[in-house]
Structures are given as structure tokens and as C-alpha cells.
């Protein structure tokens, strides 16, 4: 049988250099993140735990404490950060350095697919009609990468990344920014949430990510009449996961109708003043301290 020379045998250049192009993309991410002290990934193993609102409110509370902050809404298909922050859809300036992110009233810099689409438009890609499962995750990983590398984040103390449910984007973040990513898990008290969130966080730890701690959201209900916190969900998932993973439970945030109303109308100032908002403000202090900010 004749021997055909291998790729390595050929000394001529690989003009496509596909591997080199991918490396260059990752280097762009690394260069951009040089200006960011900490990437704080807010994650859970399931949807419906209020993670996005916790992430947006926490990012705002960190900025209110005088830190420079950004919020990357990595839930490409279900973006919500701009609405919570009362951001309209401004025209985004594109410079040689990248896309300049809009800032909210507090100075929090934000990027989200919501800023790129019309209000009611679904996220849809230009693609052949069949085989979407083959490349859609690659494409969305690429968009996430561009949100990290191509946004002019500037120098930040913390970039909060609101991750969609599921482990994939967290794993991607670990590949792109392994040395400066810290993970904040969000759960609700129920046992169903405990199972899903613990699994997800365990996977993150096994992947080498550093857990900063855990937040239990919807931990009780703020009575709108008297302000007292009563029971809402049964269970104690926060304590249980924290014990199992050896990570601290950093905060317990009650469900608060006033906070929900503020989120609905994009009033982050009002939200931060609500009962739930004050608890997230306290959480921001703990998070900043643990991050050394």
C-alpha cells in the first residue's frame, strides 16, 4: 500500500489555519478580560428560580457600592436584563475597539441579545432549514464569545454573567476565562431545585471552577401589609446544597411583590430599596468582600 504523507509531513503553510483562527478568537477574549478583575457567573441548574433578576439586581447593587461593573446577559434566547434595568434599545456605537455597551442609570454596562432585536422578535439564525442541531450550539457559543471579546467593557471590578439554565454556557465560560471566573449558584428552597442546582454546581466544581457561594431566592414572602417575611416554598435547598458542596450560603432573598413590580417597570432604584432589594444589597457587600473588591 502506498504511503500518503500526513498533515504534519507537509511543511507548507496551512492557509486556512482553522485551529489558529480559533486560537486568535480565544486570545481576543483573553485580551479583553485583562481589564476585568473578576467574572462572576450567576448560574442555577434549572429555570424559574429568579436567577436573572438576582443577577441584574446584584450587579446594580455592586455598582451602587462604588464598584465598576458590567452585566452580560448570556441567556441569548430569553434575555431579560435590559428590561429589569429600564434600558431602552439604544443605537450601539461600533468603534475599532469594539461595540460600546450602553449603561443604565447607575453606570452598569450591559450587553444582551435583547439590545440587538426588536421587542417581539424571536432569536432566529440565518441557517439552512435542516441540521440546526449540528451547529446551533456552536453558533451560540460564538455569540457568547463575541459578547466577551468584542464589547468595550473597559476596566471593570466585576463582570456579572447571567447564565441560562443548564451547564453548557458555564463550561464555555470556564474555557474562555478559567482564571478569573467565580461561580454564584442560585436556588429556591424546594427539593426539586436542590437536586438540579446541586448537580449543576457539582459539575462546575468538577470542571475546576471556583464556587463563591450560594443564594437562596424566594426564601419566604414579604408581606406587603406589615413587611414581615412569611413562609413561601417548603424545603431548605440553600442550606442543604451549601453543606453538600462545602460552600457558604451567602444570602436568602425573599419574594417581594414590591420588588417584582419594580422589575416589571424597569425601576432598579426602586427595586434596590425594596425588602428583597435590601437583602441583595447586603449580599453585594458579602460578595464584594469575598471577591476582595
Amino acid at each position, binding site marked *: 500500500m502506498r504511503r*500518503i504523507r500526513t498533515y504534519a509531513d*507537509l511543511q507548507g503553510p496551512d492557509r486556512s489555519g*482553522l485551529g489558529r483562527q480559533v486560537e486568535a478568537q480565544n486570545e481576543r477574549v483573553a485580551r479583553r478580560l485583562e481589564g476585568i478583575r473578576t467574572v462572576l457567573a450567576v448560574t442555577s441548574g434549572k429555570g424559574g428560580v429568579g436567577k436573572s433578576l438576582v443577577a441584574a439586581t446584584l450587579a446594580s447593587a455592586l455598582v451602587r457600592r462604588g464598584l465598576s461593573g458590567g452585566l452580560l446577559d448570556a441567556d441569548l434566547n430569553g434575555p431579560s436584563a435590559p428590561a429589569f434595568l429600564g434600558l431602552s434599545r439604544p*443605537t450601539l456605537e461600533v468603534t475599532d475597539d469594539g*461595540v460600546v455597551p450602553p449603561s443604565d442609570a447607575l453606570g452598569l454596562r450591559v450587553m444582551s441579545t435583547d439590545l*440587538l*432585536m426588536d421587542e417581539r422578535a424571536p432569536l432566529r439564525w440565518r441557517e439552512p432549514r435542516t441540521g440546526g442541531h*449540528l*451547529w446551533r450550539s456552536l453558533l451560540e457559543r460564538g*455569540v457568547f464569545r463575541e459578547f466577551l471579546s468584542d464589547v468595550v467593557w473597559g476596566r471593570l471590578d466585576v463582570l456579572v454573567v447571567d447564565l441560562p439554565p443548564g451547564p453548557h454556557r458555564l463550561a464555555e465560560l470556564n474555557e474562555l476565562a478559567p482564571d478569573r471566573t467565580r461561580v454564584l449558584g442560585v436556588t429556591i428552597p424546594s427539593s426539586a431545585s436542590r437536586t438540579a442546582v446541586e448537580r449543576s454546581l457539582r459539575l462546575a466544581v468538577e470542571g475546576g471552577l471556583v464556587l463563591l457561594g450560594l443564594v437562596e431566592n424566594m426564601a419566604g414572602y414579604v408581606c406587603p401589609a406589615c413587611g414581615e417575611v412569611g413562609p413561601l416554598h417548603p424545603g431548605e435547598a440553600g442550606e442543604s446544597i451549601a453543606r453538600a458542596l462545602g460552600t457558604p450560603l451567602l444570602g436568602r432573598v425573599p419574594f417581594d411583590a414590591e420588588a417584582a413590580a419594580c422589575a416589571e417597570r424597569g425601576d432598579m432604584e426602586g427595586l434596590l430599596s425594596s425588602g428583597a432589594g435590601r437583602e441583595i444589597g447586603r449580599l453585594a457587600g458579602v460578595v464584594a468582600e469575598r471577591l476582595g473588591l
Partner: protein
Amino acid sequence: MKFLCIECDEQMQFGERQLPGDGTLAAVFGCPECGREMAMLTNPMETQLVSSLGIKIGGREVPEQPFELVRGSLEGGREGAFADASAPGSVRWSDAAVERLGVVPSFVRGMVKRIYTDYARERAIREITPEIMDRARTDLGLEGM
């Protein structure tokens, strides 16, 4: 990715790239020894798979633009979402080229203009015409731009 002319045992060299507009891609390689040419043809799924990585078969001709992947891939992006700074340099646009650029959705128009301008500047082309746009589109692998 490298191609070998088995008969000559020589590495083939990249010649050109063509995008006929149906989602397929052709990349032509030639043997420097015997002159034989071959074309690598990808079907729409293969083309999409590569472009989803944000990479170019045949290599990059001009630098990657900010948000190139999302702007090139998002269907029905918001009109007026971006305001692109003008590309530096003194490349002129013919009236016909400006008219043709005008039909590109505004979501990507500014980026496409910068890509064509970079392409022209790097080749010392002083005026961008529809013919230059066609050539750039092929050379750069700008499917749908």
C-alpha cells in the same frame, strides 16, 4: 487543512474561494508542480458548520469585525441597532456601489461597509464599485453580504 497532489507528492496551494449564493462553498487548490487544480466543495450544512465557528476556509483576508458572527448570523436584527464608525482611509464609493450597499439590512450595513473598505485599502483600490464588491464577496467569503 492541507491538500496533497498524490501524483507529484506536493502540497497544493490555495487558489480562490467562491460562494455561489446557495449556501455551498468552493475552495480551489492547485498543484505548483503539475498545475492540476481541484475544488473542495462543501454542502450548505458543512458550510454552515464552519461559519458557525466564526472561521474562514482559506484564511482571513481582513481583520475580524466586532460582532461579526452575531451580525452576520442573526436573522432580522433590529434596524438601527448599530452605528459604525467610518473606516479610516480615502477609499471612494461609486454611486452604484452606494446604491447596492443601501439594500443591505441596516443591522449589518455598517460592518459590511467597513469590510469592503478594508479590502479595498489593503489592495490599494481607490474606488469601490459593484464589481469590486463582487470580487471582495468571493475573496472574503461573505455569504449573503
